[in-house]
């Protein structure tokens, strides 16, 4: 089935979407709960898209919580112990995660496919155990409490307080997501995207054809880990509390993976779509109905996707409908 959209129509569609995003807090009447849900949904959308950068290159990481946790704890420690401005320490958090990922890249990229995935799992566990035991730095299992929010911004006479206002944090999350979308779009539309695809489809063949697989895999990993760490850092300033079991645990490794594969890991929209659909359904519909069992939903989602729609929902839609922009 073919669908033709004219260029002006597409631009109008995108502009409307951006307008809605810009005024969403207003549209939701500044409802604290809904804004919280939207914030976390967008956080997961960013995490899923960031994870997908690496997956697009063919490397499935089961341990992205490592980067998330490094970003989160990094910014928390920098802003709490060293009194560094959170606006700077979030970037530092992302960089710390990126540095750690280069370590993993250099030691583990000689492993292919499933073997690489398994060691990413182990590395996340290593960081969790380290965070639990290095109590002097991370406060161990008691967790790190009282992480500051982003400092106030004053524009003219308007003060934007990030500690109390969910709407303010909303804009941070939306902006981060948009920056990430822009980055991924740039990747997909250049030689980089083609190189990633080639490596994903057949790494040996790509190597033979002259693609420097190590360089591109490392690049994918660094981008992926930076954005995951950055979002982890934002999370820390959003929630003000970190705890090793949760921050470095299976949750933040698995959920972005599930969301990304559910939505479709071969497209830009896929992870975002998967994240929003899964998280909003889970929070707004399933959580009230099944208070203790709702996380099983994510497990079922990934099992169903692998069995019936390996390319995710967007992938399936793309197979059925071809969209042409003229």
């Amino acid at each position, binding site marked *: 089935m073919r669908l033709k959209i004219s260029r002006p129509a597409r631009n109008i569609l995108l502009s409307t979407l951006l307008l809605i995003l810009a005024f969403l807090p207003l549209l939701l009447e500044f409802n604290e709960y809904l804004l919280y849900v939207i914030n976390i949904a967008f956080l997961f959308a960013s995490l899923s898209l960031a994870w997908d950068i690496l997956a697009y290159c063919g490397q*499935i990481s*089961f341990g992205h919580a490592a980067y998330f946790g490094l970003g989160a704890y990094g910014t928390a420690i920098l802003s709490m112990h060293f009194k560094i401005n959170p606006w700077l320490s979030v970037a530092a958090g992302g960089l710390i995660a990126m540095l750690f990922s280069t370590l993993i890249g250099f*030691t*583990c990229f*000689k*492993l*292919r*496919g*499933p*073997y690489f*995935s*398994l*060691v990413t*799992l*182990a590395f996340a*566990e*290593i960081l969790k*155990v380290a965070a*639990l*035991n290095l109590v002097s730095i991370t406060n161990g299992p008691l967790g790190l409490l009282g992480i500051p929010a982003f400092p106030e911004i004053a524009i003219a006479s308007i003060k934007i307080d990030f500690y109390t206002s969910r709407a303010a944090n909303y804009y941070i999350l939306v902006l981060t997501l948009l920056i990430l979308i822009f980055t991924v779009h740039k990747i997909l539309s250049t030689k980089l995207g083609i190189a990633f695809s080639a490596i994903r489809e057949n790494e040996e063949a790509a190597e033979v054809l002259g693609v420097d697989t190590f360089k591109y895999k490392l690049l994918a990993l660094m981008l992926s880990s930076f954005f995951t760490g950055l979002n982890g850092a934002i999370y820390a300033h959003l929630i003000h509390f970190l705890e090793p*079991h949760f921050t470095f*645990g*299976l949750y933040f490794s*698995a959920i972005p*993976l*599930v969301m990304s*594969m559910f939505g479709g890991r071969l497209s830009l929209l896929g992870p975002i779509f998967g994240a929003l659909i899964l998280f909003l359904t889970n929070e707004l519909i399933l959580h009230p109905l*099944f208070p*203790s*069992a709702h*996380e*099983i939903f*994510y*497990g*079922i*989602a*990934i*099992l169903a996707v*692998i*069995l*019936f729609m*390996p390319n995710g929902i967007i992938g399936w839609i793309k197979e059925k409908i071809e969209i042409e922009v003229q």
Partner: protein
Amino acid sequence: MAIVLQQALLAGLLTGMLYALIAVGFALIFGVVRVFNLSHGEFIVIAGYISYWLWSLKGVDPLLSIPISMLLLSIIGGSIKKIMEGVKEPFELNTIVFTFGLTLFLENLMLSLWSGDYRLIAANYLDQSISILGVSTSLGRFLAFTVSLVAIALLHCFFKKTYLGLAMRATSQERDAASLMGINIKKIDLYAFSIGAALAGIAGPLFASIHYVYPSAGLEVTIIALVVTIFGGVGEIRGIILGGLILGISEAFTVALLGFQWRELAGFAMLIILLLLRPYGLLGGKRY
């Protein structure tokens, strides 16, 4: 050698055999079916819960619950394999994500059914202290060692002496050739998965008798299976036994020297060292 280190060595040896048993099920499934069963740890924890509830509600001795958990786990394993038959290409990638999803599913299922409380089978006789060569350890640990050893020995006989065992070894060596020789690969896959799960069913009650059982223990156990299998290689039971013992002893020494909270570090250190020494195709290399 200080008493503490002697006890650590013994405890490590005894626990190590259980680790070998844990790894053997995982290695069997990977060797024959070519699936990295990331939920293997969850299988063992489920078996642990089965044995815990049988003990706590019906007073069934954990060792006696082994046949029951073996049966239940083999049914669970077989059903999961049947479901997995719908997985499409690329097989290796999709199955590993599938078992990862299974881990997520099973862990949260256990959490919602049985809560996150730490459970322990506190049957009194398990804590009894016995003395081997003058070093004391707990009876529970010794029983775990013995049962694991017997199970692995029986498995070895199964592989060497029975037709099914022979068929499985053939399938793990050369799938296509085995199929040409008239071996029903699909059935062999199913049996291998079920037997691997049954082995987890044996390891579970033993695990529960010397270790706390809680939903998130699965990941820990899967990593144990992973490290030991990587060390030993898929086809070599002797290698796996050696790997299990080494891991057990390293963990015991780590606990004795650094403290309980650093226990998992031993396994990770082993993993990293193996990574650096065996970079190309971890579980390949030496075949029969």
